């Protein structure tokens, strides 16, 4: 038993938990650097163990029953973990992201008796548990642990905007938790079990049932709130913009996409047998995903507060991932899984650059920082590269994910969604490149619409040498560029078939090769327009600014920061999902 690879499954969750309980119990006894070291080791252990599990899961999912409660007579009595290769690799990626974040934050939180590390390790354990579990209520538990750790981390700076952002985040995500629990209650009453496979079997036998549809509506809404899909996206910009930069790395790099990962798993595995749900999914996911990709990209372009800009870019990319899911094909889902990793790597690196600027230049405002980045040009190179990767420069794993998503979309004939993914990526890339040009090259002395965007002064402790902060950032980008495309493309079809519990498809289709280049060109054009507006002839500038000012103002009004508005949008979103489900 101990030698079987399946016996490893509890460890990536248990190790961070044990270490964080130990840290808390001995908090006041430990000398300064011990929490840093222990946290780093724990994250590395999680990454290595998850990778080992993923390798062993290549031939089929590994299953583990907690407490030895294996199913008896077809009834699932206990909680199980079931890890396919894709889930294992995602967990390994999360462990790596945490390890590099701990390096990035080395000594940053040394006055808090390891409390920061305790919260981060809990966050890590919850994410891994979320990836591995095969029990619906257990999924909810990890969802909530993740949320509670995130709420506290968001407000860490204790400034007015970070507290208000944290309150919005907490209220909206708590409502998400309640919706999810309600959905779990319904599906449990209907199927009499909490195990994914048990539920799937029961749902497949039920046929069309309003209870199943209602349960899916509630659970999907909850996971979309976590994944910041329109119209649930409002909390994200408030929270990610104000969290400390190491925390934002985790939020944008893994928490948001994990919500969509959960949605992919639940809709493919649990609700795979419900024709009603499967019929509604393309409409719902393609529609909402495209809207999210465009809105997030547009909002990103309008920002001057760097972390807020990156937050909106995360929203846009979450939309792209959702469209990949909406293709309902092996290619789309596989692309989405690869995209999660690639996006996490690039976005994590970008938030680290924002943290570097906060620490070295004591500002996060694009316009205030103009030209101030010249002294730290290596960060500028990293930011330029990350911006190009973000909009689709055809190298690296993010590009591979993009192509697969676009391949899935074009195969299913979703032309509009295909355009939305290209435009969304181009807009976010343009925003990042414009900021990089302004900060590190001193271009663009005359800001356009972004000058009217919200901003706030912020500083982060400048107690770390530049190389220590830059090294994990470059490591993330290097991993993104260097991960070999060939083996991934080779292993993906099998991994996706295990993930979706479907028969294996052949090689996955890739999108048209010119599309990423179009995105890159559009991003460069957009960034150039933002930086050289003054030098362009008036007949170009005037219609552009005239046509964008009205929608810009409307969008700013929508993102009001008022929790009451967000609650209403939440109800609207649930109503939209319910209406689509009812009409199928």
């Amino acid at each position, binding site marked *: 038993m101990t030698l079987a690879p399946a016996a490893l499954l509890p460890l990536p969750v248990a190790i961070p938990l044990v270490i964080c309980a130990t840290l808390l119990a001995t908090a006041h006894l430990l000398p300064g650097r011990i929490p840093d070291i222990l946290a780093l080791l724990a994250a590395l252990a999680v990454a290595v163990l998850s990778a080992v599990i993923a390798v062993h899961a290549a031939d089929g999912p590994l299953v583990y029953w907690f407490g030895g409660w294996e199913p008896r007579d077809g009834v699932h009595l206990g909680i199980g973990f079931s890890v396919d290769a894709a889930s294992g690799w995602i967990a390994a990626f999360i462990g790596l992201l945490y390890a590099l974040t701990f390096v990035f934050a080395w000594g940053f939180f040394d*006055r808090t008796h390891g409390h920061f590390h305790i919260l981060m390790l809990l966050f890590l354990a919850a994410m891994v548990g979320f990836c591995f579990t095969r029990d619906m*209520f257990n999924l909810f*538990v990890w969802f*909530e642990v993740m949320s*509670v750790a995130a*709420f506290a981390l968001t*407000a*860490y*700076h*204790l*400034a*007015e*905007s*970070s*507290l*208000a*952002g*944290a*309150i*919005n985040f*907490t*209220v909206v995500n*708590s*409502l998400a*938790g*309640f919706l999810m*629990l*309600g959905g*779990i*209650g*319904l599906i*449990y009453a209907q199927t009499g079990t*909490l195990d994914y496979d048990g539920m799937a079997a029961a749902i497949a036998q039920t046929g069309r049932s309003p209870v199943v549809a209602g349960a899916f509506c509630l659970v999907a809404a909850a996971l979309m709130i976590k994944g910041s899909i329109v119209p649930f996206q409002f909390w994200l910009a*408030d929270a990610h*913009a*104000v969290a*400390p930069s190491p925390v934002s790395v985790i939020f944008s790099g893994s928490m948001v996409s994990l919500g969509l990962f959960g949605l992919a798993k639940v809709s493919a595995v649990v609700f795979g047998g419900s024709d009603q749900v499967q019929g509604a999914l393309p409409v719902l996911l393609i529609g909402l995903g495209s809207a999210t990709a465009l809105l997030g990209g547009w909002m990103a372009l309008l920002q001057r507060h760097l972390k807020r800009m990156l937050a909106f870019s995360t929203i846009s990319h979450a939309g792209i991932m959702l469209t990949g899911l909406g293709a309902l094909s092996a290619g789309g889902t596989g692309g989405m899984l690869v995209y999660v990793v690639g996006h996490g790597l690039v976005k994590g690196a970008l938030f680290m650059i924002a943290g570097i600027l906060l620490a070295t230049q004591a500002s996060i*405002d694009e316009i205030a920082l103009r030209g101030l980045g010249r002294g730290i040009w290596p960060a500028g190179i990293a930011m330029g590269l990350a911006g190009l990767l973000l909009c689709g420069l055809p190298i690296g794993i993010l590009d591979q994910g993009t192509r697969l998503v676009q391949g899935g979309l074009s195969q299913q004939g979703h032309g509009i969604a295909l355009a939305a993914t290209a435009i969304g990526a181009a807009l976010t890339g343009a925003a990042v490149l414009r900021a990089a040009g302004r900060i590190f090259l001193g271009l663009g002395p005359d800001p356009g619409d972004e000058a*009217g*965007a*919200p*901003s*706030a*002064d*912020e*500083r*982060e*402790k400048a*107690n770390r040498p530049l190389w220590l902060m830059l090294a994990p950032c470059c490591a993330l980008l290097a991993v993104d560029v260097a991960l070999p495309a060939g083996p991934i493309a080779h292993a993906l079809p099998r991994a996706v078939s295990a993930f979706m519990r479907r028969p294996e498809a052949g090689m996955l289709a890739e999108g048209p090769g010119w599309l990423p280049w179009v995105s890159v060109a559009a991003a460069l054009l957009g960034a150039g327009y933002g930086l050289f507006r003054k030098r362009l002839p008036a007949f170009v500038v005037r219609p552009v600014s005239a046509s964008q000012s009205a929608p810009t103002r409307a969008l*700013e009004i929508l993102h*009001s*920061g*008022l*929790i*009451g*508005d967000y*609650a*209403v949008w*939440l*109800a609207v979103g649930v109503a939209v999902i319910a209406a689509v489900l009812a009409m199928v």
Partner: protein
Amino acid sequence: MSAATNVLPYAVAAWLFGIGLYGIATSRNFIHLVGCLGVCQSATYVLLLGLGYRWGSIAPIFYDHPPGTPAVDPVMQALVLTDIVVGATLTALLLVLTVQAYKRGGSLNPEKLRPMRAGGKSGQSQGSSQVSDGGRQAS
């Protein structure tokens, strides 16, 4: 048992969630808002325990009754227990955030206390009132 009794618990759960959401949407005081969130949560308790109940059954504790006596669903009760812990932790965290936000922003009204706004109080002008980790050390 009438038809109304058959659906009453579920209707009450839906009602509680709805009115809690209405309270959140219209609340003008963050502490009041946290209370409304608790009402939304009590909807989940009512739904889950309602789904786990069976007429004429005992509590799932076989102390006074021998094992085998028909009992209600213990799984739902275990889920609600976890849910109550979630509720308590969320309430505590939100109240802390509210108290701290009140100290910084001087108001409990969501309209006045907003995250980063273009024309808002926490815009450019605020200067050194932002407390960063470094600032915290000095204080």
